[in-house]
């Protein structure tokens, strides 16, 4: 890989290192804040 691409690659993974825990944290927060969703059930057509 060119040095430029390696820098982008490294930057991307550093961003993901911050972003992914934030996403998982936000998901846990939403789950705790909202009532648990029901698994949808197929409704027959009219």
């Amino acid at each position: 890989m060119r040095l430029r691409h390696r820098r982008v690659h490294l930057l991307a993974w550093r961003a993901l290192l911050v972003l992914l825990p934030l996403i998982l944290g936000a998901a846990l927060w939403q789950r705790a804040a909202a009532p648990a969703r029901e698994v949808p059930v197929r409704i027959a057509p009219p």
Partner: protein
Amino acid sequence: MSHRFVPVGWTRSKILYDAALLGGVAAYLVAYVRLAPLLGATPLDDQSLRMRAFGSGAFLLLTLALAIGPLARLDPRFLPLLYNRRHLGVVTCLLALAHAAEVLGWHFAFSPTPGAVALLTTEPGALPFIAFGLLALCVLILLAATSHDFWLAFLGPGLWKGLHQLIYLAYAAVVAHLAFGRLQDPGALPLALLLGLAVCALLALHLIAASREARVDADIAPPAPVAPWLIAGRAAAIPEGRALVVRPPGGEKVAIFRHEGRLSAVSHLCAHQHGPLGEGQVLDGCITCPWHGYQYRLEDGRSPPPFTERIATYRLRLVGGWIWLDPRANPPGTHVPALVLP
């Protein structure tokens, strides 16, 4: 390689790779559909099971595709997985498309609103998960559609590589899609554990590989007493058929190969996908890229006929057992006499 156009240059390795890949995917899908009803607390219909089987399969394959790069850099035994990674990416995209088709067929099958419109206007939670799934799907389709040597040649390896680095965006979007979507359902604890484990493992692999490479990148060749030459290293330190990789200040790396008592210097970047040529070896008298097997002659950096790829060559000197390198690259394919070792 590029002497004439063929849709896919099938080799025995590619056929074996694809057979193992498709067999593994089929086994996973069947196992999921059979085992998930036994493990899950809530009974699901067949279409929901298929939807989840395709979706989770796509996530696992994407994680595997992203893990292959650092694994191959940390241990060359993983290099065979890298050889045909593009087919793995295309299968990931097909699984994601099958997942999307099942979603449209299940959730909006009886909706008076067209499925695509309903999908774009329905978000059950405070945080959007369908939008993240669509973003990931769009990126995967773009990357799968350009996962061919035609697009690689048309765009050039630099732009193609830059485009395919969008995969990191797709991965973040997939994680958000799962976290804001499926993880919000009751009974999603096994998936939460799987997701957390996959994300942590992938991040750890990339950070370990990147820190190792950063140490190598920081090792810049010192100047020789005579400008513009650089001191590359000891000739005796290069094993037969292998290379010493040198980084000139402010430039791309150079690979100095030793073969049958001679030294030759070429660009470290393969003309195909910028693979690390200096981590390859000399096979049949040619430098062979460890990623996809592209070959170059030592003396002029040209692929043997009928192939037409070329890479830059460099001049070398030997002074008291030390290799001196002229960091000014010759035009790709320039003949430079090999340096004969005493």
